[in-house]
């Protein structure tokens, strides 16, 4: 049998996972991770739900989408600036592993965080409100692709040179918060004017909301296949751009 430690791909995966586990142990309980990844989506959800006479059970897919969106995209922007400030990010750049594996390790940290936090509303929906999972495959696709795409979005913004969380979070929130208003979170896509529907198609969050809704037995405006394709395309694009940005940073270093 071929020695596992001589496999190049195996090595890259093991190193990426080691980076992710280290980030989980070190940064998941850091105050910025809790604030931007947990408190932020739950607070926003409650702020826009309370007083609108909306049945909470029907809002569970929206909460799942928001937690996936905020939690997954918050880890990279917390971890990477702090590691830049401590110069520990340089350790990855000097280790014998590709930049792709380093960024995939960072992305995995965001994916795991997003999934762990977003499982909470799923369980609350099932246990408290008696919600049913109508399509488990759609829910898994929603979790997997959304957490990947949003975590990669966070890594992309974390590629902005900066040594404080605020330097990365501010521009990220400048993008994240407006996306809430065009992604079917507050108004279903079908009720939007045609031009707004076109705009909402471009938002990755739209496709998370749609898949989460579809998984709980609701309708999707663009269809689950298109939702999956768009989320997959965004994930690949975000990873690609992150790599380019990091190479640009190394040229400027």
């Amino acid at each position: 049998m071929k020695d596992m430690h001589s496999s190049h791909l195996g090595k890259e995966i093991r190193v990426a996972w080691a980076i992710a586990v280290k980030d989980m142990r070190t940064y998941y309980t850091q105050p910025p991770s809790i604030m931007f990844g947990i408190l932020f989506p739950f607070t926003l959800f409650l702020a826009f739900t309370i007083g609108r006479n909306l049945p909470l059970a029907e809002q569970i897919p929206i909460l799942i989408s928001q937690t996936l969106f905020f939690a997954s995209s918050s880890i990279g922007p917390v971890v990477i600036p702090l590691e830049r400030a401590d110069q520990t990010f340089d350790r990855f750049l000097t280790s014998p592993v590709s930049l792709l594996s380093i960024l995939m390790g960072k992305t995995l940290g965001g994916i795991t965080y997003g999934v762990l936090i977003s499982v909470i509303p799923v369980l609350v929906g099932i246990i408290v409100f008696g919600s049913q999972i109508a399509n488990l495959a759609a829910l898994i696709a929603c979790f997997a692709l959304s957490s990947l795409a949003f975590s990669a979005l966070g890594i992309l913004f974390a590629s902005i040179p900066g040594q404080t969380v605020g330097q990365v979070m501010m521009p990220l929130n400048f993008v994240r918060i407006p996306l809430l208003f065009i992604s079917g979170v507050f108004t279903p896509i079908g009720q939007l004017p045609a031009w707004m529907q076109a705009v909402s198609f471009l938002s990755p969050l739209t496709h998370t909301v749609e898949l989460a809704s579809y998984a709980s037995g609701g309708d999707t405006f663009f269809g689950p296949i298109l939702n999956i394709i768009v989320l997959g395309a965004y994930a690949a694009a975000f990873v690609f751009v992150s790599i380019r940005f990091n190479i640009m940073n190394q040229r400027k270093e």
Partner: protein
Amino acid sequence: MSSEIAIEVSNLTKYYDDLLAVDHINFEVKKGEIFGFLGPNGAGKTTTIRMLTGISIPTEGTATIMGYDIQRRSVSAKEQMGIVPDVSNVYKDLSAWDNLVFTGKLYDMPKAFRESRAEELLRMFGLYERRREKVKGFSRGMKRRICIAMALMNRSRILFLDEPTSGLDVQSVLIIRDLIRKLNQQGLTIFLTTHNIEEASHMCDRVAIINHGKIATIDTPEKLKRTFESLQSVEVAFESTPQNALKELGELPQVSEAVKEGDKFRLFTRSPSSVLASTWNYAQSNNLKLITVNTVGPSLEDVFVKLTGIRPATAEGEPERLDHGIAQGTTGREEQQ
């Protein structure tokens, strides 16, 4: 490339926008050597080390590590090296043990090997008993030792050390210097950047002096000292010092420059014997009692000052630039080259 070469640098250049930080430098480091890379703050030392270790991409030029191009075969090149940066970049929220084990994972070392190596290194650095403690509670010297241990996890063949003893207490400095020597005796090639001239003089087989991004000179410390005969000096001290002594000593025949160092005067000359005679005459004619007379060969510090125009004594903080080679508290004629 010769198999005796550990690091080969060719036309390595780095621009930061319009600022030329490293200017087409060329040098080689032989296997098993301790190679010192000296220069004042901002000379290009850290930029060079960052390019050699793959953190920064050069604007131009190439560097090979054990024959592997750091850009084209970066993974193979990085497998050969361990890096201790100027800041102890340890994971403060992890324990000493976890820091080393995580480093082993970055190098994809098998579990049993990385754990035995971590134990070996922690024992070597006297930190095994504190292996479970988070590093954020460690002293600066202990963090530095952890940082060096992390650089040695993968049994690297080249160790890059960027200002390894800067800002440490005397005990930690001595421990680290002793360790560097031992590692070198075991065959490790050491690339050491420092602005501590004495450290370089005592430890390095060869030194390169970099200034304004250019290599000013490369040679062994002793050869560099011999090259600069004009940096020989006579050190004198009088029982009581007249007010104009510095100026008058600087005007003695054969004295190219006079510097006041504490209660002593240092008279630079190509001819120490002539200066000894004229200093004796000066003391006689001014009724001064000589209490110290020494002839001093050029130190590496003198060579550094000559080449960079910066006094390393001030280089720990802000470098003090000398105007035309004459520092404050010095006097004398322009030195003939």
